[in-house]
């Protein structure tokens, strides 16, 4: 694990010093993070890096999990899909009751010892009921919503809303992801860790090794999309883009991602992609295990142009990952992507297969323009989407709970 001082090389010593100064205002406070799992998924990934960094700046940060069981997590998966607006994810009254039952079990079992209790996503949301307990008056509860609830199913949202509005504050990743609520809604974007295996600098030997392993030719141009095999990431559309580009510019295509064994749709999409590639030797369809961080890093670094042609997207942090590597990036203007790319400044935003192909040709044929977009993108990510900015925002959020709803806080 990295020390906070390791980040000084990237963001400057003054920024690291400032983080420590801000953190000193939380002296003696315990920040208890609660979610549903230690491994798997974006929330666990960010917490696994954020908690040690909070400790590095001397904040007493803890991380606990609720218990659930198979049935509970089936229901919470349905709730998750329903919040995303998936129309067939209808939750029955009986399922809502079971959700409440498990919440009560967790309330009975868990030690809610934090001064600030930071609840992540819907699974543990009901723990707010503890706020009524004797001696809990001074504790502050914050709900962190990591998902886009803008198109949420009304029934599901109303079920959760009765909990949400009991919190002292909520946090969303984008203004577009939120709903009208009676409690303060803070905006904090997610982030990437520049020192993680997925984003750290790699030497040429490491990149060559990955290219050799997959028989990718580094002397020819490469278009890449990194994402799991999911229809919402439009991997078939990416192959159409590649074919339109290839008529004019020689190139290879890498589609790198995972298709989990327990996700039947993922395997189905993976097979459709293989079928559509039709044995083209210049298309590399890489179904990688979830631990392939170095491989993903190397693939992004060996690419000439990176695509994220999603139809629907959460925040879309793979865009920040590629921009951090100074790669010219073309991405759909959906979800949190327009926050990461300012069109024609730090990348290109597209809406169609034809438009994406046109931009890809422009970038492949105009390396100077491509480099400029990549450099601007790198600076934009450095200023806005690194874990150090995320850490600062969380520290400010925790401090805010110690003040009434004041617009100006003097520290």
């Amino acid at each position: 694990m990295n020390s906070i001082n390791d980040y000084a090389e990237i963001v400057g010593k003054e920024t690291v010093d400032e983080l420590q100064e801000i953190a000193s205002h939380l002296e003696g406070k315990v920040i208890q993070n609660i979610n549903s799992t230690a491994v798997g998924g974006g929330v666990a990934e960010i917490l696994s890096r954020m908690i040690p960094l909070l400790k590095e700046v001397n904040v007493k940060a803890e991380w606990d999990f609720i218990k659930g069981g198979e049935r509970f997590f089936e229901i919470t998966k349905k709730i998750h899909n329903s919040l995303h607006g998936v129309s067939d994810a209808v939750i029955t009254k009986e399922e809502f009751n079971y959700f409440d039952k498990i919440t009560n079990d967790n309330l009975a079992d868990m030690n809610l010892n934090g001064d600030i209790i930071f609840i992540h996503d819907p699974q543990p949301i009901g723990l707010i009921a503890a706020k009524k307990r004797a001696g809990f008056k001074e504790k502050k509860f914050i709900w962190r919503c990591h998902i886009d609830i803008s198109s949420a199913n009304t029934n599901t949202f109303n079920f959760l809303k009765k909990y949400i509005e009991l919190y002292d504050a909520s946090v969303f990743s984008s203004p577009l992801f939120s709903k009208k609520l009676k409690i303060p809604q803070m905006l904090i974007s997610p982030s990437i860790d520049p020192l993680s295996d997925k984003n750290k600098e790699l030497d040429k030997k490491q990149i060559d090794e990955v290219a050799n392993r997959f028989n990718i030719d580094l002397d020819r141009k490469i278009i890449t999309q990194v994402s799991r095999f999911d229809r919402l990431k439009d991997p078939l559309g990416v192959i159409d883009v590649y074919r339109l580009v290839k008529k004019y510019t020689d190139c290879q295509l890498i589609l790198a991602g995972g298709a989990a064994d327990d996700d039947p749709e993922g395997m189905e999409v993976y097979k459709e992609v293989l079928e559509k590639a039709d044995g083209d030797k210049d298309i590399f369809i890489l179904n990688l295990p979830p631990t392939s961080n170095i491989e993903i890093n190397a693939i992004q670094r060996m690419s000439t142009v990176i695509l994220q042609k999603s139809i629907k997207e959460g925040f879309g942090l793979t865009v920040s990952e590629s921009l951090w590597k100074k790669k010219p990036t073309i991405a759909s203007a959906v979800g949190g992507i327009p926050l990461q790319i300012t069109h024609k400044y730090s990348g290109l935003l597209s809406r169609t297969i034809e438009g994406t192909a046109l931009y890809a040709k422009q970038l492949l044929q105009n390396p100077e323009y491509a480099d400029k977009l990549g450099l601007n993108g790198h600076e934009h990510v450095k200023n806005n989407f690194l874990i150090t900015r995320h850490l600062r925002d969380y520290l400010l959020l925790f401090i805010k709970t110690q003040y009434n709803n004041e617009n100006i806080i003097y520290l």
Partner: protein
Amino acid sequence: MSNVQAKYPFRFFVKLSLPQLTGLFALNLNDFLKGIRMSDDAILYYHTHHFLLQFHNTAPAAPNDFAYWVTNVLGENLLGEQLAGIDMFSFNSMEEFKQKLIEIIENFITKNKKTRQVEMSSRFNFIKSVTYVMDTKKYAYSLNDFVNILQSLSIYCLYYHFFESSFRLKERKNDFSMWIASEFKLTELADKINNLDPYTHTMNELKNAIIKLVKQYQ
């Protein structure tokens, strides 16, 4: 001047902020105008300064969110340019700036009855800044100290002493120039710093320009 000691030291603060949604949004120019009318200083501050924060190493795409949305989302280039051209430093308060915004938009609406309605995903969200003013507990007694400390602090120090100061002091002045003029009688240096336009420099350029100017008088 490097060894001359000030009677009163310069005390460094940094100004940090965290964005908060207000629930107010606009899909067209009329809603946009209504939203601006309802905006307080914290909202106006966010939308006039967050671009500087986001692009502090590179040139900002537009000097404020209002101009950016009108130009790039509504597609009203003429109005966008008018809003982008407002000189923030010519106002002593956010309220004055707000009245100028309202005047320009009202004029435009009077002459252009038909304006676009955008989709929910392209709406203008009115966001406010929750501001944190943090005492760094660092004091400069000389120009040498001043340069060394300024170099060691983040760009958020400029937000307090250079941007916020003109609204706090109710005139186009900044804390650095005030201190240099009063403690060292270096009015020429104070004026040179005062004449730097922070809205046309990137944050790092501005910090480096101030340090370079002060070094010439050390």
